[in-house]
Protein backbone atom coordinates (compact mmCIF):
# COMPACT_ATOMS: atom_id res chain seq x y z
CA UNK A 1 0.00 0.00 0.00
CA UNK A 2 1.38 3.39 -1.03
CA UNK A 3 1.41 6.16 1.55
CA UNK A 4 -0.42 9.40 0.80
CA UNK A 5 1.29 12.76 0.38
CA UNK A 6 -0.05 13.79 3.81
CA UNK A 7 1.39 10.71 5.49
CA UNK A 8 4.79 11.32 3.84
CA UNK A 9 4.61 14.95 4.97
CA UNK A 10 3.80 13.75 8.51
CA UNK A 11 6.94 11.56 8.49
CA UNK A 12 9.03 14.47 7.20
CA UNK A 13 7.72 16.70 10.01
CA UNK A 14 8.37 13.91 12.51
CA UNK A 15 12.01 13.78 11.35
CA UNK A 16 12.33 17.56 11.67
CA UNK A 17 10.87 17.37 15.20
CA UNK A 18 13.45 14.69 15.97
CA UNK A 19 16.19 17.18 15.04
CA UNK A 20 17.13 15.68 11.69
CA UNK A 21 17.75 19.17 10.36
CA UNK A 22 19.94 18.43 7.32
CA UNK A 23 17.79 17.87 4.23
CA UNK A 24 20.30 15.50 2.60
CA UNK A 25 20.17 13.23 5.67
CA UNK A 26 16.42 13.53 5.95
CA UNK A 27 15.65 12.50 2.40
CA UNK A 28 17.50 9.20 2.81
CA UNK A 29 15.80 8.50 6.14
CA UNK A 30 12.42 9.52 4.74
CA UNK A 31 12.63 7.11 1.82
CA UNK A 32 13.72 4.25 4.09
CA UNK A 33 10.97 4.89 6.62
CA UNK A 34 8.25 5.25 3.97
CA UNK A 35 9.40 2.06 2.18
CA UNK A 36 9.48 0.14 5.49
CA UNK A 37 6.02 1.38 6.53
CA UNK A 38 4.47 0.56 3.14
CA UNK A 39 6.00 -2.91 3.39
CA UNK A 40 4.78 -3.48 6.96
CA UNK A 41 1.25 -2.29 6.21
CA UNK A 42 1.10 -4.44 3.06
CA UNK A 43 2.67 -7.63 4.42
CA UNK A 44 2.04 -7.61 8.16
CA UNK A 45 -1.33 -5.85 8.17
CA UNK A 46 -0.35 -3.35 10.86
CA UNK A 47 -1.61 0.23 11.05
CA UNK A 48 0.37 3.30 9.94
CA UNK A 49 0.99 4.31 13.56
CA UNK A 50 2.18 0.86 14.63
CA UNK A 51 4.46 0.56 11.59
CA UNK A 52 6.01 4.01 12.12
CA UNK A 53 6.63 3.32 15.80
CA UNK A 54 8.28 0.03 14.94
CA UNK A 55 10.54 1.64 12.31
CA UNK A 56 11.34 4.45 14.77
CA UNK A 57 12.58 1.88 17.26
CA UNK A 58 14.41 0.02 14.52
CA UNK A 59 16.74 3.00 14.05
CA UNK A 60 17.91 2.58 17.64
CA UNK A 61 15.70 5.28 19.18
CA UNK A 62 15.06 4.02 22.69
CA UNK A 63 11.47 3.85 23.83
CA UNK A 64 10.24 2.94 27.31
CA UNK A 65 6.53 2.35 27.33
CA UNK A 66 6.29 2.12 31.10
CA UNK A 67 3.82 4.57 32.56
CA UNK A 68 2.37 5.64 29.21
CA UNK A 69 -1.28 4.98 28.50
CA UNK A 70 -2.03 3.00 25.31
CA UNK A 71 -3.65 5.93 23.52
CA UNK A 72 -0.57 8.09 24.06
CA UNK A 73 2.00 5.50 23.04
CA UNK A 74 2.19 6.65 19.40
CA UNK A 75 2.40 10.37 20.14
CA UNK A 76 4.90 10.07 22.98
CA UNK A 77 6.86 7.15 21.55
CA UNK A 78 7.86 9.06 18.43
CA UNK A 79 9.46 11.94 20.28
CA UNK A 80 10.80 10.30 23.45
CA UNK A 81 14.29 9.74 22.05
CA UNK A 82 16.15 10.60 18.85
CA UNK A 83 19.37 8.82 19.81
CA UNK A 84 19.30 6.57 16.72
CA UNK A 85 18.90 9.49 14.32
CA UNK A 86 21.66 11.44 16.04
CA UNK A 87 23.99 8.47 15.72
CA UNK A 88 23.01 8.11 12.06
CA UNK A 89 23.87 11.78 11.36
CA UNK A 90 27.10 11.62 13.36
CA UNK A 91 28.35 8.59 11.46
CA UNK A 92 27.46 10.14 8.10
CA UNK A 93 29.19 13.34 9.16
CA UNK A 94 32.34 11.39 10.01
CA UNK A 95 32.35 9.60 6.66
CA UNK A 96 31.73 12.82 4.71
CA UNK A 97 34.61 14.50 6.53
CA UNK A 98 36.86 11.59 5.59
CA UNK A 99 35.66 11.69 1.99
CA UNK A 100 36.34 15.42 1.58
CA UNK A 101 39.74 15.27 3.27
CA UNK A 102 40.68 12.51 0.85
CA UNK A 103 39.37 14.50 -2.14
CA UNK A 104 41.19 17.60 -0.92
CA UNK A 105 44.48 15.76 -0.67
CA UNK A 106 43.99 14.27 -4.14
CA UNK A 107 43.27 17.75 -5.53
CA UNK A 108 46.40 19.19 -3.92
CA UNK A 109 48.53 16.44 -5.46
CA UNK A 110 46.94 17.07 -8.87
CA UNK A 111 47.56 20.81 -8.58
CA UNK A 112 51.31 20.27 -8.36
CA UNK A 113 51.37 18.54 -11.73
CA UNK A 114 49.29 21.29 -13.32
CA UNK A 115 51.58 23.87 -15.05
CA UNK A 116 48.80 26.49 -14.95
CA UNK A 117 48.57 26.21 -11.18
CA UNK A 118 52.36 26.21 -10.74
CA UNK A 119 52.49 29.52 -12.61
CA UNK A 120 49.63 30.87 -10.46
CA UNK A 121 51.48 29.72 -7.34
CA UNK A 122 54.66 31.48 -8.40
CA UNK A 123 52.69 34.69 -9.02
CA UNK A 124 51.09 34.31 -5.56
CA UNK A 125 54.46 33.87 -3.85
CA UNK A 126 55.88 36.80 -5.86
CA UNK A 127 52.95 38.97 -4.80
CA UNK A 128 53.49 38.22 -1.13
CA UNK A 129 57.24 38.83 -1.40
CA UNK A 130 56.50 42.20 -3.06
CA UNK A 131 54.10 43.05 -0.24
CA UNK A 132 56.77 42.04 2.27
CA UNK A 133 59.26 44.40 0.66
CA UNK A 134 57.08 47.44 -0.03
CA UNK A 135 53.95 47.23 2.17
CA UNK A 136 54.83 44.97 5.13
CA UNK A 137 52.07 46.31 7.37
CA UNK A 138 49.40 44.89 5.02
CA UNK A 139 50.88 41.43 4.92
CA UNK A 140 48.96 39.99 7.89
CA UNK A 141 45.62 41.26 6.63
CA UNK A 142 46.32 40.01 3.09
CA UNK A 143 47.20 36.54 4.39
CA UNK A 144 44.05 36.46 6.47
CA UNK A 145 41.90 37.48 3.49
CA UNK A 146 43.46 34.76 1.32
CA UNK A 147 42.78 32.11 3.93
CA UNK A 148 39.20 33.23 4.23
CA UNK A 149 38.52 32.66 0.52
CA UNK A 150 36.63 29.35 1.17
CA UNK A 151 34.35 31.21 3.59
CA UNK A 152 33.67 33.96 1.02
CA UNK A 153 32.97 31.35 -1.66
CA UNK A 154 30.55 29.48 0.59
CA UNK A 155 28.75 32.76 1.40
CA UNK A 156 28.48 33.47 -2.33
CA UNK A 157 27.04 29.99 -3.00
CA UNK A 158 24.62 30.14 -0.09
CA UNK A 159 23.24 33.48 -1.36
CA UNK A 160 23.00 32.09 -4.90
CA UNK A 161 21.47 28.74 -3.99
CA UNK A 162 19.30 27.82 -1.01
CA UNK A 163 20.07 24.11 -1.39
CA UNK A 164 23.41 24.78 0.33
CA UNK A 165 21.52 25.66 3.51
CA UNK A 166 21.05 22.98 6.12
CA UNK A 167 22.90 20.45 4.03
CA UNK A 168 25.30 18.11 5.83
CA UNK A 169 27.51 17.71 2.77
CA UNK A 170 27.93 21.51 2.45
CA UNK A 171 28.45 21.91 6.18
CA UNK A 172 31.21 19.31 6.11
CA UNK A 173 32.91 20.57 2.95
CA UNK A 174 32.89 24.08 4.40
CA UNK A 175 34.36 22.93 7.70
CA UNK A 176 37.17 21.14 5.82
CA UNK A 177 37.87 24.42 3.92
CA UNK A 178 37.79 26.42 7.15
CA UNK A 179 40.44 24.12 8.59
CA UNK A 180 43.21 26.16 6.88
CA UNK A 181 41.89 29.38 8.32
CA UNK A 182 41.78 27.78 11.78
CA UNK A 183 45.33 26.43 11.41
CA UNK A 184 46.51 29.86 10.28
CA UNK A 185 44.94 31.43 13.35
CA UNK A 186 46.42 28.78 15.60
CA UNK A 187 49.88 29.18 14.05
CA UNK A 188 49.60 32.92 14.39
CA UNK A 189 48.67 32.74 18.08
CA UNK A 190 51.52 30.32 18.80
CA UNK A 191 53.95 32.74 17.11
CA UNK A 192 52.46 35.69 18.94
CA UNK A 193 52.86 33.84 22.24
CA UNK A 194 56.46 33.01 21.34
CA UNK A 195 57.48 36.50 20.19
CA UNK A 196 55.29 38.53 22.54
CA UNK A 197 53.61 40.79 19.96
CA UNK A 198 52.84 41.05 16.27
CA UNK A 199 55.46 43.78 15.72
CA UNK A 200 58.28 41.65 17.11
CA UNK A 201 57.33 38.65 15.01
CA UNK A 202 59.52 38.15 11.90
CA UNK A 203 57.29 39.41 9.08
CA UNK A 204 58.63 36.65 6.82
CA UNK A 205 56.51 34.14 8.80
CA UNK A 206 53.41 36.02 7.62
CA UNK A 207 54.58 35.44 4.04
CA UNK A 208 55.48 31.79 4.52
CA UNK A 209 52.21 30.72 6.20
CA UNK A 210 49.78 31.83 3.42
CA UNK A 211 52.19 30.46 0.80
CA UNK A 212 52.23 27.04 2.48
CA UNK A 213 48.44 26.95 2.89
CA UNK A 214 47.56 28.30 -0.57
CA UNK A 215 47.61 24.94 -2.47
CA UNK A 216 45.49 23.31 0.27
CA UNK A 217 43.09 26.19 0.06
CA UNK A 218 42.77 25.86 -3.69
CA UNK A 219 42.24 22.12 -3.23
CA UNK A 220 39.42 22.69 -0.73
CA UNK A 221 37.75 25.27 -3.01
CA UNK A 222 37.79 22.69 -5.77
CA UNK A 223 36.17 20.11 -3.46
CA UNK A 224 33.47 22.65 -2.55
CA UNK A 225 32.72 23.24 -6.23
CA UNK A 226 32.72 19.49 -6.93
CA UNK A 227 30.20 18.92 -4.10
CA UNK A 228 28.04 21.77 -5.43
CA UNK A 229 28.07 20.39 -8.98
CA UNK A 230 27.37 16.82 -7.77
CA UNK A 231 24.50 17.95 -5.56
CA UNK A 232 23.01 20.04 -8.36
CA UNK A 233 23.29 17.09 -10.71
CA UNK A 234 21.85 14.59 -8.24
CA UNK A 235 19.00 16.61 -6.75
CA UNK A 236 17.85 18.67 -9.75
CA UNK A 237 15.58 15.93 -10.91
CA UNK A 238 12.88 15.09 -13.30
CA UNK A 239 10.06 12.80 -12.22
CA UNK A 240 10.78 9.26 -13.44
CA UNK A 241 7.35 7.72 -13.44
Amino acid at each position, binding site marked *: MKLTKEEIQFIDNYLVKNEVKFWDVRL*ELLDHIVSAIEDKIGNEGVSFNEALLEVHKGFGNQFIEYGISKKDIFKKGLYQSNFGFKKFTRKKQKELGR*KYRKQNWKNVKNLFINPKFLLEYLVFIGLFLTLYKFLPKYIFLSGLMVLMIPTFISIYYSIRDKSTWKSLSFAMVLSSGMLWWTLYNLGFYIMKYYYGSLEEMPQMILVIIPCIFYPFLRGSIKVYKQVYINNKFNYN*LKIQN
Partner: protein
Amino acid sequence: MNEIGPLKIILCKNKEAVFLLLEIKIKIIPKIIMHKKIMYICIMSNSKLYKGSLNTIILKLLNENDKMYGYEITQKVKALTQGELNITEGALYPALHKLEAEGLLDVEVAKVDNRLRKYYKLTESGTKETVNKLEELAEYIKTMQALVNPKLA
Protein backbone atom coordinates in the same frame (compact mmCIF):
# COMPACT_ATOMS: atom_id res chain seq x y z
CA MET B 1 15.93 -22.76 33.76
CA ASN B 2 19.08 -24.26 35.34
CA GLU B 3 20.40 -23.71 38.80
CA ILE B 4 24.07 -23.22 39.53
CA GLY B 5 24.73 -22.52 43.21
CA PRO B 6 22.71 -19.60 44.42
CA LEU B 7 22.23 -18.23 40.92
CA LYS B 8 19.30 -18.83 38.67
CA ILE B 9 20.27 -18.81 35.04
CA ILE B 10 17.74 -17.91 32.42
CA LEU B 11 18.66 -18.55 28.84
CA CYS B 12 17.04 -16.39 26.27
CA LYS B 13 17.39 -17.07 22.59
CA ASN B 14 15.94 -13.78 21.36
CA LYS B 15 18.27 -11.59 19.37
CA GLU B 16 17.13 -8.52 21.24
CA ALA B 17 15.81 -9.77 24.50
CA VAL B 18 13.12 -7.93 26.35
CA PHE B 19 12.96 -8.94 29.96
CA LEU B 20 10.39 -7.95 32.45
CA LEU B 21 12.35 -6.67 35.41
CA LEU B 22 10.58 -4.99 38.32
CA GLU B 23 7.56 -4.65 36.01
CA ILE B 24 9.53 -2.33 33.73
CA LYS B 25 10.31 -3.46 30.23
CA ILE B 26 13.99 -2.94 29.60
CA LYS B 27 15.54 -3.56 26.24
CA ILE B 28 18.86 -5.28 26.70
CA ILE B 29 21.65 -5.83 24.25
CA PRO B 30 22.46 -9.55 24.34
CA LYS B 31 24.84 -10.03 27.25
CA ILE B 32 24.99 -11.35 30.80
CA ILE B 33 23.25 -9.24 33.38
CA MET B 34 22.68 -9.78 37.07
CA HIS B 35 19.62 -8.76 38.95
CA LYS B 36 18.61 -9.88 42.45
CA LYS B 37 20.93 -12.91 42.22
CA ILE B 38 19.39 -13.94 38.94
CA MET B 39 21.77 -14.19 36.07
CA TYR B 40 20.11 -13.39 32.77
CA ILE B 41 22.04 -14.80 29.88
CA CYS B 42 21.00 -13.97 26.40
CA ILE B 43 22.71 -16.11 23.82
CA MET B 44 24.66 -13.91 21.45
CA SER B 45 23.07 -13.58 18.08
CA ASN B 46 25.05 -14.65 15.03
CA SER B 47 24.99 -11.04 13.77
CA LYS B 48 28.52 -10.48 15.09
CA LEU B 49 29.81 -13.20 12.81
CA TYR B 50 28.22 -11.52 9.81
CA LYS B 51 29.33 -8.02 10.77
CA GLY B 52 32.80 -8.37 9.30
CA SER B 53 31.31 -9.45 5.97
CA LEU B 54 28.73 -6.66 5.68
CA ASN B 55 30.74 -4.64 3.16
CA THR B 56 31.28 -7.74 1.01
CA ILE B 57 27.56 -8.55 1.14
CA ILE B 58 26.66 -5.01 0.01
CA LEU B 59 29.26 -4.99 -2.77
CA LYS B 60 28.16 -8.41 -4.01
CA LEU B 61 24.49 -7.39 -4.11
CA LEU B 62 25.27 -4.19 -5.98
CA ASN B 63 27.44 -6.10 -8.40
CA GLU B 64 24.46 -8.29 -9.25
CA ASN B 65 21.77 -5.60 -9.23
CA ASP B 66 23.29 -2.55 -10.92
CA LYS B 67 21.78 -0.07 -8.43
CA MET B 68 19.88 -0.48 -5.16
CA TYR B 69 18.49 1.71 -2.37
CA GLY B 70 18.98 1.15 1.36
CA TYR B 71 15.70 -0.54 2.23
CA GLU B 72 15.91 -2.73 -0.87
CA ILE B 73 19.30 -4.05 0.30
CA THR B 74 17.93 -5.02 3.73
CA GLN B 75 14.97 -6.81 2.16
CA LYS B 76 17.08 -8.58 -0.45
CA VAL B 77 19.45 -9.91 2.23
CA LYS B 78 16.50 -11.02 4.34
CA ALA B 79 14.93 -12.83 1.38
CA LEU B 80 18.15 -14.48 0.22
CA THR B 81 18.95 -15.78 3.71
CA GLN B 82 15.31 -16.67 4.41
CA GLY B 83 15.17 -14.32 7.35
CA GLU B 84 18.36 -15.60 8.98
CA LEU B 85 20.29 -12.38 8.43
CA ASN B 86 18.60 -9.12 9.23
CA ILE B 87 20.71 -6.06 8.46
CA THR B 88 19.68 -3.24 10.75
CA GLU B 89 19.45 0.38 9.61
CA GLY B 90 22.10 1.26 12.17
CA ALA B 91 24.59 -1.08 10.50
CA LEU B 92 23.62 -0.69 6.85
CA TYR B 93 23.82 3.08 6.35
CA PRO B 94 27.19 3.66 8.04
CA ALA B 95 28.56 0.84 5.87
CA LEU B 96 27.06 2.40 2.72
CA HIS B 97 28.36 5.86 3.63
CA LYS B 98 31.81 4.42 4.34
CA LEU B 99 31.95 2.60 1.01
CA GLU B 100 30.81 5.82 -0.68
CA ALA B 101 33.55 7.80 1.10
CA GLU B 102 36.11 5.23 -0.03
CA GLY B 103 35.01 5.83 -3.61
CA LEU B 104 33.68 2.29 -4.06
CA LEU B 105 30.07 3.42 -4.42
CA ASP B 106 28.45 6.18 -6.39
CA VAL B 107 25.09 7.78 -5.71
CA GLU B 108 22.14 8.44 -7.99
CA VAL B 109 18.98 10.20 -6.84
CA ALA B 110 15.58 9.69 -8.45
CA LYS B 111 12.09 10.88 -7.67
CA VAL B 112 9.84 7.94 -6.81
CA ASP B 113 6.26 8.21 -5.44
CA ASN B 114 6.41 11.81 -4.13
CA ARG B 115 9.81 11.44 -2.55
CA LEU B 116 13.47 11.31 -3.45
CA ARG B 117 15.25 7.99 -3.43
CA LYS B 118 19.00 7.57 -3.15
CA TYR B 119 20.36 4.68 -5.18
CA TYR B 120 23.80 3.23 -4.64
CA LYS B 121 25.82 1.70 -7.45
CA LEU B 122 29.34 0.39 -7.85
CA THR B 123 32.09 2.57 -9.23
CA GLU B 124 34.85 1.10 -11.37
CA SER B 125 37.09 0.65 -8.33
CA GLY B 126 34.09 -0.76 -6.45
CA THR B 127 33.70 -3.51 -9.06
CA LYS B 128 37.39 -4.40 -8.72
CA GLU B 129 37.14 -4.35 -4.93
CA THR B 130 34.12 -6.70 -5.05
CA VAL B 131 36.25 -9.36 -6.76
CA ASN B 132 38.99 -8.96 -4.12
CA LYS B 133 36.53 -9.02 -1.23
CA LEU B 134 34.78 -12.14 -2.54
CA GLU B 135 38.10 -13.90 -2.95
CA GLU B 136 39.02 -12.91 0.62
CA LEU B 137 35.69 -14.21 1.90
CA ALA B 138 36.02 -17.51 0.01
CA GLU B 139 39.49 -17.94 1.51
CA TYR B 140 38.11 -17.18 4.99
CA ILE B 141 35.29 -19.71 4.60
CA LYS B 142 37.80 -22.33 3.41
CA THR B 143 40.05 -21.70 6.42
CA MET B 144 37.12 -21.83 8.85
CA GLN B 145 35.89 -25.02 7.21
CA ALA B 146 39.34 -26.58 7.71
CA LEU B 147 39.23 -25.62 11.37
CA VAL B 148 35.63 -26.50 12.15
CA ASN B 149 35.01 -29.43 9.88
CA PRO B 150 38.25 -30.81 8.40
CA LYS B 151 36.41 -33.65 6.63
CA LEU B 152 34.54 -31.20 4.38
CA ALA B 153 37.50 -28.92 3.74
